[in-house]
């Protein structure tokens, strides 16, 4: 990259921070529009039932209430069937019967499903009225798990006849036919958990009757896609809707997808001809924002006696909740395709079935369908290594894909077909780096030992992280009248420091100081088209779009000045600060600004990049309480090319801590009747500052990506991916003297304690058996 400004690769302080530190951030609930009303969503308290009637009489009479709309009210306006939440990613016909109507009409299928929307003068009044909406729902038996789902005795969608959406198969070689001297089969499970970002969802929809325009504040992640869906549902031209992205309090995959409220709130605004604001409360956020991760699997590993892997085969069952929503296909697909991770396993077959249940519907959450298989596979590896008497580090080293084997195809996927390959990298290098920085050899002396009443265990895991999803990203750069630059990008901010990173790239390419650049992102008003932030793509796709656009601008400048001076473009020299010189004299940035110069650009790419690394953990287990304490956690990632080492390091640490929450603390629990139990922060436990003080992360530039001009590989998601496997292996290692094999997450104190009790009583039985 022809950059000499020196911003790329430097830990530049973030441009976003000045506003955010002084209370001048502007999140959607901070916006006040004269005359705005407030919405509250009435949600089903019944997990599965037929709606007999929804009585809104009393609610309508409450002070401040402007309107109450039920499913039947909206269905009437839509010729009987309400609009559905679109399936944005990998839609296939099998999913259509499972699409969610934006509001329940005849049936409810999960606790939290919207059944009415109340609009009032204040949020308190809307909530008061919502409490008085009486829903007469005839309860039906619930489908509480995937086993019940697959029996198809109780159906969520009666006319369809099945609760099962689809089975994906990840395939390589001939796994069913593979044999070897050693094999082991185990069952594992991961619990339901999700993003639970600090700012809940929210939107402010403003319908302006005179102009026929709709402005929606609070867009995120994929504003252009949401706009398209909304326009279709409201029968509006796309151009008459503006989706505005303001400051966003975290997304992690969950914010920004199309939900019921993304239709209901704009619908209400248009009906009432007033701005309508809806801010999700925390209970709703836990209950009704996309859930993730919950699945069981049965996995079998086959290998040589020396540990060389031959096959990995298994079946996974995803508890997908009640509907297929925008991104529900991703995790199941990724589990099927990435079960082998960065390891060279000749024969792989992973069948993953999506099962609907009477719980909150799933979507993508950071590292979707990657956290889960890493847990299954890495646990399997440590068990196999122990059985075979092989050091778990060597087991991994001998099986990691080697540089000379890349590009290395991963298992192929179906429904629809998808092939992919690991691009390039030196996986053994990050393994060795981890061993050294974690001080593996030294800590190994404590492996399995009981010291001061605590068992010590260490473990490690190697991971890959796919990034840079296509198809493309767009950007535009304008030179303003005063010579400053405005850069517009289609990427969305989710709090990841996007503006800073992209500004660094623009500044370096154009050789201007960073404070000369204003970067705008996300909103549909800036560009005709944008593709958003997900799959860790913003730095690569957005960054390369900015890179290309900046290069295009330089060309435009030369050509325009050449035309003005009547000379050839290559006679025009463009230097620092957009200073132009040549046969016609010289021009400064402000003069270029008056020439109204701008460039549009894009970056298109279908190749995924794979950053990769290794993580290790040192835990202790208190056998009296089952508490797992983390003494040290170290992760190293090769990100190819680092734009801002400070922000990418921050991403890595934050990502690890989220993963540790998933491994040890978090659980979107339901009871056996599908009533939601985790609706408060006293029940859903996020990591606090006191829980994991020892997390260390290192992000390197070892081998750049060959597939994009930046050489970057992403880096926002990797930290979370190996945490489940590493922590559970460390716990198993700590308790190895008791022969305890954890196979489900989260590893809560009661769960670990119960494993210890069971192991101890088994041991008590065993000696008696021997002497009998």
């Amino acid at each position, binding site marked *: 990259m022809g950059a000499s400004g020196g911003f790329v690769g430097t830990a530049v302080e973030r441009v976003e921070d000045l506003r955010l530190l002084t209370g001048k951030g502007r999140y959607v609930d901070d916006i006040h529009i004269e005359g705005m009303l407030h919405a509250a969503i009435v949600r089903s308290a019944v997990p599965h039932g037929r709606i007999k009637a929804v009585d809104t009489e009393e609610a309508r009479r409450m002070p401040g209430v402007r309107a109450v709309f039920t499913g039947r009210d909206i269905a009437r306006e839509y010729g009987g069937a309400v609009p559905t939440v679109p399936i944005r990613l990998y839609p296939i016909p099998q999913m259509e019967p499972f699409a969610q109507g934006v509001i329940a009409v005849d049936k409810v299928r999960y606790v939290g499903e919207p059944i009415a929307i109340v609009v009032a003068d*204040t*949020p*308190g009044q809307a*909530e*008061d009225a919502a*409490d008085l909406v009486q829903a007469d729902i005839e309860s039906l038996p619930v489908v509480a798990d995937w086993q019940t789902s697959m029996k198809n005795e109780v159906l969520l969608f009666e006319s369809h006849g099945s609760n099962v959406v689809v089975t994906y198969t990840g395939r390589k070689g001939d796994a069913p036919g593979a044999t070897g001297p050693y094999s082991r089969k185990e069952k594992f499970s991961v619990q339901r958990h999700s993003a639970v970002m600090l700012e809940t969802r929210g939107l402010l929809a403003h319908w302006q009757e005179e102009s026929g325009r709709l402005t929606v504040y609070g867009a995120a992640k994929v504003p252009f896609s949401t706009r398209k869906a909304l326009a279709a549902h409201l029968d509006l031209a796309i151009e008459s809707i503006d989706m505005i992205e303001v400051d966003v309090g975290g997304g992690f995959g969950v914010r920004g997808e199309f939900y019921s409220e993304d239709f209901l709130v704009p619908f209400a605004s248009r009906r009432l001809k007033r701005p309508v604001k809806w801010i999700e*409360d*925390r*209970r709703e956020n836990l209950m009704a924002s996309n859930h993730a991760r919950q699945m069981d699997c049965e996995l079998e590993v086959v290998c040589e006696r020396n540990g060389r892997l031959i096959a990995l085969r298994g079946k996974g069952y995803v508890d997908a909740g009640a509907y297929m929503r925008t991104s529900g296909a991703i995790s199941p697909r990724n589990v099927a395709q990435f079960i082998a991770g960065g390891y060279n396993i000749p024969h792989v077959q992973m069948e993953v079935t999506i099962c609907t249940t009477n719980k909150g519907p799933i979507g993508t959450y950071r590292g979707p369908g990657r956290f889960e298989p890493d847990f299954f596979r890495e646990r399997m590896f440590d068990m196999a290594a122990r059985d075979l008497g092989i050091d778990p580090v060597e087991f991994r080293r001998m099986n990691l894909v080697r540089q000379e084997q890349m590009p290395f195809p991963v298992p192929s996927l179906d429904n629809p077909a998808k092939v992919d390959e690991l691009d390039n990298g030196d996986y053994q290098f990050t393994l060795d780096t981890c061993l050294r920085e974690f001080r593996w050899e030294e800590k190994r002396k404590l492996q399995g030992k009981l010291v001061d009443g605590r068992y010590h265990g260490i473990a490690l895991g190697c991971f890959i992280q796919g990034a840079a999803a296509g198809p493309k990203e767009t950007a535009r750069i304008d030179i303003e009248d005063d010579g400053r630059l405005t850069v517009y990008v289609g990427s969305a901010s989710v709090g990841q420091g996007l503006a800073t990173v992209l500004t660094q790239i623009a500044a370096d390419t154009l050789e201007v100081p960073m404070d000369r650049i204003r970067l705008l992102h996300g909103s549909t008003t800036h560009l005709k088209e944008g593709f958003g932030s997900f799959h860790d793509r913003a730095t690569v796709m957005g960054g390369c779009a900015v890179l290309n656009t900046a290069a295009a601008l330089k060309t435009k400048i030369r050509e325009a000045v050449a035309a003005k001076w009547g000379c050839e473009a290559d006679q025009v020299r463009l230097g620092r600060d957009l200073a132009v010189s040549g046969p016609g004299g010289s021009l400064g940035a402000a003069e270029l600004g008056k020439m109204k110069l701008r460039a549009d650009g894009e970056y298109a790419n279908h190749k995924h990049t794979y950053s990769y690394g290794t993580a290790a953990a040192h835990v202790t287990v208190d056998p*009296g*309480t*089952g*508490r797992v304490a983390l003494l040290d956690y170290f992760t190293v990632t090769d990100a190819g090319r680092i734009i801002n080492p400070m922000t990418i390091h921050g991403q890595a640490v934050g990502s690890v801590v989220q993963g540790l929450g998933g491994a040890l*603390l978090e*659980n979107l*629990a339901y*009871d056996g009747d599908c009533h939601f*139990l*985790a609706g*408060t922060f*006293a*029940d859903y*436990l996020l*990591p*606090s500052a*006191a*829980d994991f003080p020892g997390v260390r992360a290192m992000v390197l530039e070892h081998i750049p990506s060959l597939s994009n001009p930046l050489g970057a590989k992403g880096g926002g998601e990797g930290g979370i991916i190996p945490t489940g496997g590493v922590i559970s292996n460390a716990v198993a290692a700590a308790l190895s003297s008791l022969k305890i094999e954890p196979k489900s997450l989260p590893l*809560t*104190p*009661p769960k670990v*304690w*119960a494993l210890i*009790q069971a192991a101890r009583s088994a041991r008590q039985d065993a000696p008696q058996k021997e002497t009998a």
Partner: protein
Amino acid sequence: MKLPDFQYFAPATAGEVVRMLAAHAGEAKILAGGQSLLPVMAFRLARPAALIDLRKVEGLGEITIDASGVRLGARVRWRDIEDDKRLATAHPLLVEAIRHVAHYQVRNRGTVGGSLGHADPASEMPCIAATCEAELRLLGPKGERRLKAAQYFLGPLSTALQPDELILEVHLPAWTAGRRWAFQEFARRPGDFALAGVAAYYDLDSQQRASNAHIGVVGACHFSARLPRAESALNGKRVDAATAQAVGRVAAEEATPTGDFHAPVEYRKALVGTLLERALGEAAARK
């Protein structure tokens, strides 16, 4: 989760508070720090018709220490207990238990009276009151009365406090020199409600055996109470590792926790035993 509507009063005297409580016939609640009440109202699990704020009532915020023990006014905050250095010797068990209450910001507002009025069995203050045989001084329309903790705590979130009564203060009996004590709590994260906790103290008789044992639990009984069988198992014994383990086992048997998805009954009972065993070890080692 906006609060439901209510009437709000901020009277200037305890007498007026009681008059207002009586006038609202059970539909009014006292607002002290609000750290327990407001979250419950935010979830609309309680919708009192009126809140009577104690913020202007004088004389309820004192910590008095004399020969009879420690008296904590109802408006004494966790922060005040933390800041009062006299309590380190006047009632170390109280200080240690209160260290575990919630977090920094909550400790600046949460009050002794609020906690005792709310009577959550998973809270530390009710446990200390029960364990130490505290006496509560209450004010009602007919005047003052005193209730011992054992008569006060009746069930989970349920006490003998009448709807028209106000807690004025709680009196912890004097702490004796040479007393052995410990407080051990187990929570998922620091500051969380405990899955279980134990408060324990005993004195030593002339033969260095435990006597006057008082053992109470946090979160492991339906309501804040002592464990008399565990106390009997401890009294008269030399407190060594074997005793600690044996008494722990009795406590595990005796505790009656409620299970939920965080932890089943079996685990909580065992936890009580483990925590008491460790607490007794800590107490015995204390100089």
